């Protein structure tokens, strides 16, 4: 369970009132000492917990190397023109390097090109951007991630049964990769029937409603393969409400998923640790600035987290430590 060390509601309400007063207070990084590099970190939204993990990892990774981070998140979740604007604004500010998660792998290519033109190094994390020059890509192969997780659940089914797939945002590269990974796993088991593959937009509520409807259509569902943990949790809600047990797997290895694995409601979550994306992304950026070698690609190993191996991930986010650079980026 996450420990919510928060300032409490009163502060929140006070802050609403005082928002205007502190709007100008964010000028921290320029005041920071000379010689400390500033890394601008771009993530897709402030609603998905995965990216909070990435941001925390990046902050930790940079801090470990004695650098500062500045976070940029579109005010509207996953908004393409807005991330483009933020890139333009950041180019003016000239950080030493950028750690970049594109909101869209295709449409953000001109953004990366703009950063290239300004001569600021870019480390691409999590989702690959399909153009421009990058120092390094830190992430994992999402097709493999989904295939391994899918394989895991289908083996637990004994290689036979009826399954459904909950897709992410229709057409997004994340969703496509993950779904094709699931599909690959399903095809490995001839006795497994894929009943349906429907989009839940990576959202819990939509997955819940889609699952409720699927439960009406199909009297027998043995397993649910969800393209992220939020949707897996939504599916579990629907299954529990209908009293129809099924094996559910998700992807991302979020804290919520780990708690659900501990509680036995979620079978497993394919994890490609977002914390390490952030850590190594920031480290790679700082290393590049310091003229230390950085490989073109750092693939974070994939773990299918289940009730046997969740412990390393089950610590509060703020207590997690970045791995040593050499752990994943050897030699």
């Amino acid at each position, binding site marked *: 369970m996450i420990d919510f060390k928060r300032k409490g509601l009163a502060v929140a309400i006070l802050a*609403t009132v005082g*928002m*205007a007063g*502190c*709007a*100008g*207070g*964010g*000028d*921290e*990084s*320029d005041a920071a000492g000379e010689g400390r590099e500033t890394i601008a970190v771009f993530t897709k939204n*402030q609603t998905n917990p995965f990216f909070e993990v990435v941001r925390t990892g990046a902050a930790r990774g940079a801090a470990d190397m004695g650098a500062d981070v*500045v*976070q*940029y*998140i*579109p*005010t*509207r979740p996953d*908004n*393409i*023109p*807005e991330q*483009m*604007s*933020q890139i*333009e*604004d*950041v*180019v*003016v*500010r*000239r950080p030493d390097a950028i750690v970049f998660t594109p909101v*869209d*792998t*295709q*449409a*953000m*290519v*001109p953004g990366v090109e703009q950063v290239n033109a300004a001569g600021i190094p870019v480390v691409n994390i999590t989702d690959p951007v*399909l153009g421009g020059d990058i120092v390094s890509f830190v992430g994992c192969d999402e097709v493999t991630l989904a295939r391994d997780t899918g394989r895991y659940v289908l083996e637990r089914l004994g290689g036979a049964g009826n399954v459904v797939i909950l897709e992410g*945002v*229709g*057409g*997004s590269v994340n969703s*496509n990769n993950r779904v094709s990974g699931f599909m690959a796993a399903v095809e490995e088991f001839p006795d497994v029937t894929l009943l349906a593959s429907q989009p839940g937009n990576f959202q819990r509520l939509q997955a819940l409603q889609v699952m409720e409807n699927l439960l009406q259509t199909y009297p027998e569902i043995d397993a649910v393969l969800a393209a992220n943990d939020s949707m897996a949790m939504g599916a579990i809600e629907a299954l529990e409400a209908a009293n129809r047990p099924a094996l559910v797997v998700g992807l991302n290895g979020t804290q919520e998923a780990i708690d659900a694995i501990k509680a036995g409601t979620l079978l497993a979550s394919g994890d490609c640790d977002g914390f390490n994306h952030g850590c190594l992304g920031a480290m790679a950026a700082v290393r590049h600035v310091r003229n230390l070698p950085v490989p073109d690609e750092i693939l974070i190993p994939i773990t299918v987290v289940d009730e046997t191996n969740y412990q390393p991930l089950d610590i509060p986010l703020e207590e997690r430590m970045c791995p040593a650079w050499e752990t994943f980026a050897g030699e």
Partner: protein
Amino acid sequence: MSRAAVLEGGARWRAAASRAPGVAYLLAALLVFFALFGPRFASAPNLLNIGIQSSILLLLALPMTLIIMAEGLDLSMGAVLGLAGIVLASALVAGYGLPAALGAALAVGLVFGVANGLLVTRVGLPPFAATLGTLGAAQGGALVATGGQSVVGIGPSLPALYASSWLGIPFSIWVAVAAYGAFHVLLYHTRFGACVFAIGGNRDALALAGVRVHAYHAAIYALGGLMAGFAALLLTGRMNAGHPTAAIGMEFDAIAAVIVGGTRFERGYGGLPGTVLGVLAVGVLKNGLNVLAVPSSLQVASIGLLLIAALLVDSIRGRS
């Protein structure tokens, strides 16, 4: 009846200043604040950035001004922009030239604009409901056509055009300036413009003047659709791709900019300069906060604060 009958030059200026929307003062305050505290905010590249970032929104906000002055609303603009972008990109991918592709995008925009216009004037639907309906149609159309994916591989012609600049000013700013100029002439120097004022201000007077009110009224919406189609040129050029949901919600930003700029839903009150101020105020705010590296959650709240503060200034000044 002993009112001052003649306005002298100076008095006209003062009258104009007194009519300036509250957002003008907020914009000035923001500029001063960011210039003082934002590193390199006042540099030429950054000011150009604000222009680039505001240009697409301005292309939507200009016709939205006319639509709102005519006591209407167009919620479909963002979705139509998205769909037109898909069409533009797909046409380029299919190997058509840029003019043909732009023509197709404009045609898509026009079709939706005309549909909005007819639904409002002929079928008599409330503009909010009519354009909410076409919003769904355009957005659904874009999603179905692409399966939610980006349309890529549009070739070099549009990106090259978008990246070009003249006299050191980027293409998109020239487009925005030209669009403003065109709309300025249209609203203040043509019969069409007088009709826009009259449709909101005194529709009966227009009808009695023998003008075909419905046609002009529908034309305002058609213009809105057309501009949404045209804005696809900039959006697609900016992303080097077409994306079905890239412009979702932009209509609300445009409406907010227009209202903050002093245009009102009643009596044909409003104008284009205020809309420019409204668009710029939001653009400057977002840019300045990025330059200051203010946390995103605070940026989100600041946008709301700006909108409400601008209206509040108007409301207080309106009372005194």
